[in-house]
């Protein structure tokens, strides 16, 4: 059977077919749908959201040690979080096959940086595979499991946004049951005390030698000889782009197994070519190693080392051709940034926060980061997940020490709180600052498309479970001043912020209201009710002051000619934030 699948869907199918029985992840674009799709194989695979990537990898490691084939998936920055277990698990090796999937985001479609995670393979000394389309994404999972078990090592699979989120045709197969290997206690393998690690250290490099030989032999690295003395070495999505440009007019060495590199194959290819190009997305990862081996090639002097690659860039860089296009004046087109949805519970909070002066707002990553965009503009920084409270803490300490009249307010989402925010808040309590942390609890992981987390009461595979009480956790880590409010009631938000600013000890404000796009559970419905209606502007009352517009709700319109605000009934969910802002009481729920 043939199906049109995204790379992520194909990975899930591959995991199923390869006999994987445990998979864990923390969501992150472009990797999220891998676990969402694996979760569908309820009977055969245990699939879980972990609170963060480190925990996801650790639980997959545990499953491997116990004897099952396992995998963990994450976006590229997630591997930074998971790097600690990764580097050490490389020493112990596996029992059941174990695969770590990193989904890189060239072009920064939805990421805080553009790191090229291929370097992790080299750094951690583990083998790496790189699929270039959905069929390969599926097939390589099976190969990865075999490599992992044969060479006793975790394997890194590196995907990129265009592989994860492009659909192409995949041949669907059957599950190959591999069962579970027996668990045998083995301290000399799994107990990384220095004496053990020192031993394993030498094996690590020995294994790489064997893997290099495998790399030279595997059909994952293959030649496409054509009538040409121009050769291109390429991998991942760059292969597809290159084929698009040159089709069969040049020869190729397509690399699917990219650490360790198949230097013998590369040398053979180079010997047969007059000109050798390396076409790779992002950093000169292949090029550096190929040049270091003394093989002449052309790479980053022609192809940029940043942003997403595409056929146009390759054609222009290597042969100087460009397609004809329509010429027009594009100066009038302003960029259209993402915004908080109509009715987003974050809006009311940020509306009030934006009015406070002499504060630094330490933001974090999630939908609530959009509270930093115009017109709300309440954010000074955002660095990494979970960092808002600790960054706020450091800043607050310095403002205090230098007697500057500045308070620091951290904003952090519920999923981000569970990810690594708890430690950060612990720091504000432990080290005694008067940092204010606002946990914007919209009852779900919003930005990545609504995944459950330890606070929602459900697991990835839909089982009801314990819902952690954020307020109780915060108190347990040492915060004495905690308030839980409804962010849609602006007066509550305002008084909570004033209360926190008046304190000389660390405090936490939890805003509790579900994301408008969340599929509500019965528990949500009981707590929050259904607000299935819309608001409207009474035209005769509207004076055109535009105060409602400053809430930034995308359901609001302004008729310049008539100088009246209007509400798009398709988008409005009657959250009533604009209602509270209007000085003329011109806005009300339809029928009120």
């Amino acid at each position, binding site marked *: 059977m043939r199906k049109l699948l995204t790379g992520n869907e194909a990975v899930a199918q591959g995991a199923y077919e390869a006999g994987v029985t445990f998979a864990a992840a923390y969501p992150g674009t*472009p990797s999220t749908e891998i676990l969402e799709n694996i979760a569908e194989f309820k009977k055969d695979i245990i699939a879980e959201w972990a609170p963060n990537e480190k925990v996801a990898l650790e639980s997959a490691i545990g499953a491997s040690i116990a004897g099952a084939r396992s995998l963990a998936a994450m976006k590229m920055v997630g591997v930074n979080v998971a790097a600690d277990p990764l580097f050490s698990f490389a020493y112990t090796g596996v029992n059941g096959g174990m695969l770590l999937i990193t989904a890189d985001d060239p072009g920064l479609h939805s990421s805080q940086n553009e790191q090229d995670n291929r370097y992790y393979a080299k750094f951690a000394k583990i083998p790496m595979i790189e699929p270039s389309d959905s069929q390969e994404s599926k097939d390589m999972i099976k190969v990865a499991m075999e490599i992992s078990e044969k060479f006793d090592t975790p394997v890194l699979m590196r995907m990129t946004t265009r592989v994860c989120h*492009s659909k192409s045709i995949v041949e669907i197969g059957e599950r190959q049951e591999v069962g579970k290997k027996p668990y045998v206690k083995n301290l000399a393998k799994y107990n990384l005390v220095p004496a053990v690690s020192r031993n394993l250290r030498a094996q690590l490099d020995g294994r790489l030698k064997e893997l290099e030989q495998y790399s030279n032999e595997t059909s994952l690295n293959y030649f496409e000889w054509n009538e040409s003395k121009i050769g291109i070495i390429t991998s991942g999505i760059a292969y597809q782009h290159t084929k698009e440009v040159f089709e069969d007019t040049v020869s190729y060495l397509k690399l699917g197994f990219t650490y360790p590199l198949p230097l013998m194959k590369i040398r053979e290819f180079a010997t047969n070519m007059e000109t050798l190009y390396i076409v790779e997305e992002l950093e000169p990862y292949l090029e550096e190693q190929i040049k270091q081996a003394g093989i002449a090639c052309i790479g980053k002097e022609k192809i940029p080392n940043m942003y997403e690659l*595409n056929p146009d860039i390759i054609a222009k860089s290597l042969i100087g051709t460009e397609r004809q*296009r329509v010429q*027009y004046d594009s100066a009038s087109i*302003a960029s*259209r940034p993402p915004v908080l949805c109509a009715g987003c519970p974050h809006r009311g909070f940020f509306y009030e926060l934006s009015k406070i002066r002499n504060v630094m707002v330490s933001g974090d990553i999630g939908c609530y980061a959009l509270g930093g965009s115009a017109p709300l503009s309440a954010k000074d920084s955002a660095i990494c997940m979970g960092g808002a409270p600790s960054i706020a803490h450091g800043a607050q300490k310095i403002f205090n020490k230098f007697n500057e009249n500045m308070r620091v307010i951290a904003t952090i989402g519920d999923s981000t709180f569970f990810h690594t925010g708890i430690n950060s808040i612990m720091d504000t309590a432990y080290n005694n600052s008067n940092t204010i942390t606002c946990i914007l609890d919209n009852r779900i992981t919003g930005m990545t498309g609504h995944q459950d987390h330890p606070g929602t009461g459900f697991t990835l595979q839909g089982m009801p479970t314990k819902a952690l009480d954020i307020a109780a956790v915060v108190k347990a880590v040492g915060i004495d001043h905690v308030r839980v409010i409804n962010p849609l009631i602006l007066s509550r938000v305002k008084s909570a912020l004033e209360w926190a600013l008046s304190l000389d000890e660390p405090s936490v404000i939890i805003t509790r209201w579900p994301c408008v796009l969340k599929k509500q559970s019965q528990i949500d419905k009981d707590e929050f009710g259904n607000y299935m209606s819309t608001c409207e502007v009474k035209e005769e009352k509207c004076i055109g002051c535009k105060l409602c517009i400053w809430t930034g709700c995308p359901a609001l319109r302004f008729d310049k000619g008539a100088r009246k605000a209007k509400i798009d009934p398709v988008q409005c969910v009657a959250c009533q934030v604009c209602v509270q802002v209007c000085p003329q009481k011109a806005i009300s729920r339809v029928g009120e």
Partner: protein
Amino acid sequence: MDVKNILLVGVGGQGTILASKILSDGLITAGYDVKMSEVHGMAQRGGSVSTQVRYGKKVYSPIIGKGQADILVAFETMEALRWLEYINPRGTAIVNDYQIPFALILMGQIDYPDGILEVIQQKVKTTVLKAAEIAVQLGNAKTMNIVLFGALVKAMSLENIDWEQAIRNHVKAKTVDINLEAFHAGLTGTGFSSPK
């Protein structure tokens, strides 16, 4: 056959992804090799979005280049202008006459550009339709994407594919009828201005 390139652009939340899913689904049943590329995440929250569908005998890259789109379907008027450099000068633009302003425009800091439809009509073969109005008349404003999809199918001259089945595969059972109506409204061109 050469690879054909369909670029669907709009604002996050307008349903471009659903339209391209239906499109790809139909194309597969007709035996084409298909690649489709979409971008998730950040941009979906009301930002500018694009999905790309390429089909033919064999497709390599999932990305459509500048000057390469045979058909550009713009779900929002300004987005048509933003993506115009992607259209093949001999290609067709299908433009929804529907404006979605955003914060800077509403706050009065910049203006929504004037005369976009005229600019596009001067440059390439263009079909303009008021898909939002058509969808509201049909009784469900949210079927706007399927009205546009109907117009796309007409422009592709691939009416023989079983698109109705493809639509059924992707919309909720309750909304099949209204979506089929929307599709036919788009396909038959009711309420369009004539191509120039």
